[in-house]
């Protein structure tokens, strides 16, 4: 068997690698190049040096989007993970109907972001109308809270499944031994369960952090950046720069913003992975 793998590895690796190179590496490099250009279509690009980056880094709305996105990412990561972990704990206790609950919590994740955005837009606006408050797209704090509710509703179920898998993989011996030694529920949670699900926490943190940072569909459908770009997150800002404006410079600006965005996401997720990995324990 091993011999066969040695002989045939190119058959397995090359197609995938080729697809990866064509579908990812090449476009990425081209995108990097275009971020230094003015262009309308990609084959008529003209070199523009670092002008695009200078513009992107000094544009007020882009900086606002960055801080808005950062705030949203932090708050949503905390909310989603705390809630998902709590539900996972509750649903691993063997209460009746556990499977039904798990399915129900997971379901929102099966609906696409745009659809969810429009549904929640209608729901939240109805509630706000009944309360006599300004609608989502008129009041930035409500827009922020609306986005948060939407993201939590969509993501908690997915993270919950990962946490449940983590909790179930904790050997029962540990828990029994702890109980026999007289550990309280709180001690079991903090000393045994959490250290043992650290790998799940790592992956869930990674997913919710990057999801929060890269949020686009929900932002577009729920608030569309209103009022006056105040709830415009980075991805939507880039999209609006690229397509909302006319002239070759704007394509370049948008592209430069996209590269900055990509670097940000990579840096933040690497830091987060390092931080949580170091807390993982071997079973």
């Amino acid at each position, binding site marked *: 068997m091993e011999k066969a793998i040695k002989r*045939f590895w190119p*058959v*397995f690796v*090359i*197609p995938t690698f*080729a*697809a990866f190179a*064509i*579908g990812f590496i090449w476009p990425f490099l081209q995108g990097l190049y275009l971020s230094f250009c003015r262009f*309308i*279509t*990609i*084959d*008529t690009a003209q070199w523009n040096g670092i002008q695009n980056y200078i513009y992107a880094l000094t544009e007020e709305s882009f900086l606002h989007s960055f801080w808005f996105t950062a705030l949203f990412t932090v708050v949503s990561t905390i909310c989603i993970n705390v809630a998902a972990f709590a539900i996972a704990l509750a649903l691993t206790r063997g209460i009746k109907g556990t499977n039904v609950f798990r399915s129900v919590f997971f379901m929102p994740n099966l609906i696409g972001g745009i659809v969810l955005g429009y549904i929640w*837009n*209608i729901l939240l*606006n109805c509630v706000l*109308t009944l309360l006599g408050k*300004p*609608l*989502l*797209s*008129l*009041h930035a704090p409500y827009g922020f809270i609306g986005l948060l509710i939407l993201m939590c509703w969509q993501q908690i179920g997915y993270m919950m499944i990962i946490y449940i898998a983590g909790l179930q993989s904790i050997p029962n011996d540990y828990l029994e031994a702890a109980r026999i030694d007289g550990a309280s529920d709180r001690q079991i949670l903090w000393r045994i369960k959490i250290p043992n699900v650290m790998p799940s926490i790592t992956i869930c943190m990674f997913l919710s952090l990057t999801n929060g940072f890269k949020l686009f569909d929900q932002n577009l459908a729920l608030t*569309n950046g*209103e*009022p*006056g*770009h105040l709830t415009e997150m980075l991805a939507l800002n880039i999209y*609006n720069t690229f*397509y*909302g*404006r*006319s*002239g*070759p*410079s704007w394509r370049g600006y948008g592209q430069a913003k996209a590269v900055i965005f990509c670097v940000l996401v990579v840096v933040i997720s690497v830091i987060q992975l390092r931080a949580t990995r170091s807390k993982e324990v071997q079973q």
Partner: protein
Amino acid sequence: MKKFLALGLTAALSLSLLAGCGTPSDPSGSSDPGGSDPGTAANGSVYYLNFKPEQDAQWQELAQIYTEETGVPVTVVTAASNTYEQTLTSEMAKDVPPTLFHINGLNGLLNWKDFCYDLTGSDILGELSSDSYALTEGDATLAVAMAVESYGLIVNKTLLAEAGYTVEDIQSFDDLKAVAEDITARSGELGFAAFSSAGMDSSSDWRFQTHLANLPIYFEYEDKGVTSTDAIEGTYLDNYKAIFDLYINNATCEPAVLSSMTGDDSRNEFLAGEAVFFQNGSWEYANLVGDGLFTDNDLAMIPIYIGVGDEANQGLCTGTENYWAVNASADPEDIQATLDFMYWCVTSETGTNAMCGGEGAMPSGGTGMGFVIPFNGGLEPTNLFMKQNDEYTAAGKTPVRWDFTTIPSQTWKNDLSSALTAYAAGTGDWDGVVSAFVDNWASEYAMLGA
């Protein structure tokens, strides 16, 4: 043997994977019925990237007929609604780019002028009924209008009569205000409102941040005798406020909920007889009479009066945002084929019937496109609102130009829309609108050259 089979299968799989990553389908394959027949056909071919999804079927049919008549292959691809700019950007980068495409006035020209073939001296330019329907830069004519449209206040005459008025009673902004406020005062008894909702959702806000905004821009330009400016003063913004206030305070809904109201909401209210007035254009005609709810006798379009200028002689807002441009980077043969196709569309009997006709105008018996085309061979309009536009003009009234094509950017429009929405809901004030109108105009114009 098994090993070879597995190897073969893997290779096949990888090939199909690679093929999937290649250039998406060559457009000339999709709807090209005739193919190029070297015996009879000229060497060029036409690839038309159509802007209006609602006319796709007619263009496909016309393309097929043209190919049968001349042997020149014509491919028509229609971009999905609201994605024209994205589609055009990616199509232009392909090996077989569109030879005929749309640009939406000066802003579109900014993006695409390097791709626009200079139409000076071409047959199609000779057919244009007025020079004002061409987009020029310097000496070059880069695009020609392909359809002219009008907008104004669409009136449900039946409801207006129920309220005790006729269209003739409204000859000025003061008349309109009096009628609207009277209807609002009696709305409980009448059972309908004056205006359909002025929705500020993106499907509807262009009616106010672009079309309604055109009026203060137009009158300011008229005063100064200019056709564009890099710094608008907002001389008539008080009138803009007055008409917008009139819309939102005499409507089917509260001003606070306008941010979530859509274009469909507004149309449905009008169709359901909940409102007398509906600000929209001749393109809505098919939607209004299509379901048989209204006939031509129920409807009329009146000018949008804002209390400025010579209101007695004000006509509908008439102009165009639909321009045809020919791709300068296409092969010379394809450019010639495209010019011939355009010429045929606006001069031949089949072409003009299809473009201008209504019910049964297509050779297959289908409904025509119903355009009013700015070419000498254009037919009489079948669209009620365009007929009215002709009547207004014949009665000596001056159409209001579409000066909104000089608005510096989409961002200007969107920011104005935000400010109007906040003003309507009471979370912002009118100063915000003035700032979005005047200050942003200057800053956006400054960025145009950037």
